[in-house]
């Protein structure tokens, strides 16, 4: 137990104890679900309106908002320590590099 403590402290950082010990109230989780359902309705409605190239960007924006809600609250990313939050952002950054390099290549073909 003692030997693990530095890693545990580094990983758990801020308020993870609150997440591990205290349950998230149902009403908070339900509010997140309602938000997700509303955003789903919005993305379906907007896709029926013809906005040209803007349609794709709106769909991606709403999907990103929805995934942020799932990640932050259902997956507790909001309550995790520095280790998980940093490695998560590094993963997203790596994925962003992969995507942007592909489009860099595609646009010059």
């Amino acid at each position, binding site marked *: 137990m003692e030997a*693990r403590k530095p890693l545990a402290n580094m990983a758990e950082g801020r308020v993870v104890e609150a997440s591990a010990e205290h349950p998230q109230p149902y009403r908070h*989780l339900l509010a997140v679900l309602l938000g997700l359902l509303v955003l789903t309705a919005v993305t379906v409605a907007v*896709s029926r309106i013809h906005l040209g190239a803007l*349609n794709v960007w709106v769909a991606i924006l709403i999907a990103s908002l929805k995934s942020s809600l799932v990640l932050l609250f259902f997956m507790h990313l909001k309550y995790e320590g520095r280790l998980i939050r940093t490695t998560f952002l590094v993963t997203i950054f790596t994925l962003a590099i992969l*995507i942007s390099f592909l*489009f860099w290549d595609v646009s010059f073909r």
Partner: protein
Amino acid sequence: MEQVDRTGKKVGMWLFLYTEMMLFGGLFVIYANYHHRYIEEFANGGAALNLMVGSLNTVLLLASSFTVAASISALRKGTRKIALAFLGASISMGLLFLVNKYFEWGEKFAHGIYPGSTELGEGPHGLTVFYGLYYTITGLHGLHVVIGLGLLTVCSALIWSGRIHQSNDIVLENSGLYWHLVDLIWIFIFPLFYLVA
């Protein structure tokens, strides 16, 4: 009492989830590339998919994610039976998702739209690519739903037998993370295929 390395187990789970994000991220990159090349055909392909079924499946997965999160809260409150009920609801909604997928794929198969079909081969190349990506990505996602359902079922059994309890819930938490990832990926699949029309 047995000491559990919660942090280590959770970090391990997240590392695995990162590889999953890269796996589906790679497939989305392929999708983006072909969408760029075959905008017209992708719109036609998307229009042929059943938006009602797609939306219903979105609602099912979002709601099942909520019930998984709620089951963890219930277990931490010490209400074991409510936790089991929430998990049961998640498993039912996951199964319904697969049933919808079965009918959705079946209907497409009946119209001769499946990988390697002659009808698809005679049509425009972009449409073949669209359905190829559709079957690959939703198929791989469906496999994840099946695995997730397996994990949730194991968790239910472990809660039932008392091996997962109020102060040792990391197995449920990690299985929950996996289920949320399945939901997360569907959040991107839904607009890419059903709303592209």
